């Protein structure tokens, strides 16, 4: 059976910061409807890869295609309109505004020019309220909807960050360490949330929590020192001696 074309593909991607080669010759094929994780020791180039894929910092070499369309040099906000969305490694919210308002602003941002309307209440934009309610229940934040975003515990803020990434109803979601700093309960809930995104959406995930990655991923790419050292389904990655060595060599028992 022929493989369907990937939703997101990178071909020979490289990023240089002056003389430092942060990423070199990275090729990646993210299949539609799956959860694809990128793992690797600290400094392996995972966030650099994300920035190159999303357009936050375009690659110095190689090409990125999104749904068959070349987007290597396309600015980040135009890629977002093609259905790509990301969450940030560092929590970045409207801390003084309500949780609901954070999500509403994110939903409204995807509605283009209607954000310029100044003659009616924000609640009168059609479909926005429903989309916000949907995101509130999806992220498990419905009970805290009217709380200040800054008053949420860390796990809640991470969940809100994911909710905001989903607000544009993207086909492809890139999540940068969504579980970082979460307590055990939050990890379980967020893991279920991420798993539930596929197959309706495609997920590209950077995550250090190896247990979760091996559990929910359909496919895993392992980066080390800016290069792909292994790629395959979780079982194959778990058994790969090169991966074990890369991890034991740098961060010890991280695997």
């Amino acid at each position, binding site marked *: 059976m022929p493989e369907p074309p990937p939703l997101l593909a990178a071909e020979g991607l490289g990023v240089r910061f002056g003389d430092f080669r942060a990423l070199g010759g990275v090729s990646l094929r993210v299949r539609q409807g799956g959860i694809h994780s990128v793992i690797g020791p600290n400094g392996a180039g995972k966030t650099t890869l994300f920035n190159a894929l999303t357009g936050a910092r375009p690659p110095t070499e190689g090409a990125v295609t999104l749904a068959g369309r070349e987007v290597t040099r396309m600015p980040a906000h135009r890629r977002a309109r093609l259905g790509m969305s990301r969450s940030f490694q560092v929590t970045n919210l409207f801390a*003084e505004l309500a949780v609901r308002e954070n999500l509403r*602003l994110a939903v409204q941002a995807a509605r283009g020019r209607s954000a310029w309307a100044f003659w009616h*209440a924000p609640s009168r934009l059609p479909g926005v309220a429903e989309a916000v309610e949907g995101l509130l229940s999806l992220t498990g934040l419905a009970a805290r909807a009217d709380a200040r975003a800054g008053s949420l515990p860390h796990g809640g803020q991470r969940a809100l960050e994911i909710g905001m990434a989903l607000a544009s109803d993207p086909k492809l979601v890139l999540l940068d360490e969504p579980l970082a700093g979460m307590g055990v309960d939050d990890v379980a809930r967020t893991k279920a949330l991420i798993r539930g995104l596929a197959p309706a959406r495609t997920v590209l995930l950077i995550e250090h929590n190896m247990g979760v990655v091996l559990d929910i991923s359909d496919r895993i790419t392992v980066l080390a020192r800016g290069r792909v050292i292994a790629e395959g389904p979780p079982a194959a990655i778990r058994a790969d001696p090169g991966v074990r060595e890369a991890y034991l060599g740098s961060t010890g028992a991280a695997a």
Partner: protein
Amino acid sequence: MEPRFPDPTSLGLLLAVAALPFVLPTVTLASEAVVFATGTLSCSLLLGGVGLLSFGQGLFLGAGAYASGLLLRDAGLGTAAAVLLSTLGAAALAGLVGFISVRRRGVYFVMLTLAFAQMGYFAVLAAGRVTGGENGLTGVPRPSLPGGLALDTPGAVYAVLAVLCLSAFFLAQRVLASPFGSVLAAIRENEARAEALGYGTRAFKVAAFALAGGIAGLAGAMHTLFLGFVPPNTIQLEMSERLIVMAIIGGAGSPAGAFVGALFFVVAAEFLAELWPRWLILIGLLLIAIVLFMPRGIWGAAQELLARRRAAAVPGLAADA
């Protein structure tokens, strides 16, 4: 938490504006209050709505004042047309100044607005043959309104100024409680995040700056109608400062704060000036006290007090039972 329109303060503003000429000792003082309330609103809208501190609002107020004076006296326009055109003209000028100024953030943005404000004053002095220079623009008529309402008594002038002032406040409340206003709040809270969501934050800031400039220009035209001449201090840097001081005293968080701040300042000036010629020292002390102890201004502090009383009332009832 998010602003609404109309809200209880809309009704409060309406009642306050209706009551002012009867509560204050003179109608003239009431007129001065609504003129400065409108000018202060332009500062609050930028500071409280978008998080932009502009030292240039005096420039737009002055531009509106001079434009309306020239249109009334030299172009022979009617009152309504002169007010409308000076408001739009000030908005256009502010759009231009904003387009240049929002390219920088923080203190550099403030410096740019300050530089434009200074240029405005010296431009008025340089064009002395048109503007009257240091003497100001004298002998500005007050033509009757289209309906035949003559502006020949302080009460009639106040009525017109009151309607204009309320229009500006209701417009500001409407805009803040809209999708556009919610983006301004997002910019105020975290501009980088708003941009990452896909909002073109620079364009939103320019639009807000033009709107605030238009409101300042309207206040200038109201000032001209009120005095019947245009003193050069309408466009001096001190005007910009005074509007910011009023905005902070009242609390920049909402339009109602602008009204409270301007009213407080105008009334305090009236009474203190009689007691002591150096009354501005007292205003300075007051400003220091407010910034230190009531960062949300008189209106913000009053709202907090009200909320605390309401919260205290509920368990109080339970304890009685």
